[in-house]
């Protein structure tokens, strides 16, 4: 069964802290994605990766960075957390062929105070 896991379901951090969100998939997928989900705004793409050590900016990359050192792991980094980064963060993965359907993790609800 397809599985995407995220390191935390809930996280509370203070303004200015460096925050790491981890995502692991066990399906040998090439593609991995980070989104944030906010009410009324749907899913907005932050960063994505097609291969190890490769990354591309999505629609809202400001204030974020990513790392992909292994195929199964994709990390999202908030360099200096701010209150406007309080959100639900979703990780997804997909194959580079076929319909490209994405498989999602359970999400991390991050609160920055």
């Amino acid at each position, binding site marked *: 069964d397809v599985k995407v896991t995220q390191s935390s379901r809930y996280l509370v951090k203070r303004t200015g802290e460096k925050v790491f969100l981890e995502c692991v998939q066990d399906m040998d997928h090439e593609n991995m994605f980070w989104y944030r989900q906010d009410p009324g705004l749907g*899913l907005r793409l932050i960063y*994505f990766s097609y291969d190890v050590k490769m990354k591309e900016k*999505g629609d809202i990359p400001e204030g974020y960075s990513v790392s992909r050192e292994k195929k199964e792991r994709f990390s999202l980094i908030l360099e200096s957390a701010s209150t406007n980064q309080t959100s639900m963060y979703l990780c997804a993965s997909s194959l580079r062929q076929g319909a490209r359907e994405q498989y999602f993790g359970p999400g991390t609800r991050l609160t920055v105070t």
Partner: protein
Amino acid sequence: AQSVSQHNHHVILSEAASLELGCNYSYGGTVNLFWYVQYPGQHLQLLLKYFSGDPLVKGIKGFEAEFIKSKFSFNLRKPSVQWSDTAEYFCAVNAPYSGGGADGLTFGKGTHLIIQP
């Protein structure tokens, strides 16, 4: 860039009512189309997808969707909803210039469906 429109942001229905949620996209060429569902407190999961072939696609839990190329639409339907269908529903498209490049998806803003017992 791609865009996906979901016309209804909030829908409230009674149990046993019929459901149709609208989805329109902007790209005129070959597309792959998806509906995802997010039940309260759960992760996003694939409800159904259109990749090729029969434009009427059947998914899990009695849902279906029809791809109408001439209308750029992929509407989600269910003949009789249940209280357990209460969830957020997202339409998504894979096409050139999707968010995330050729392999990415562009999502609509979602429809919050509430089923009253």
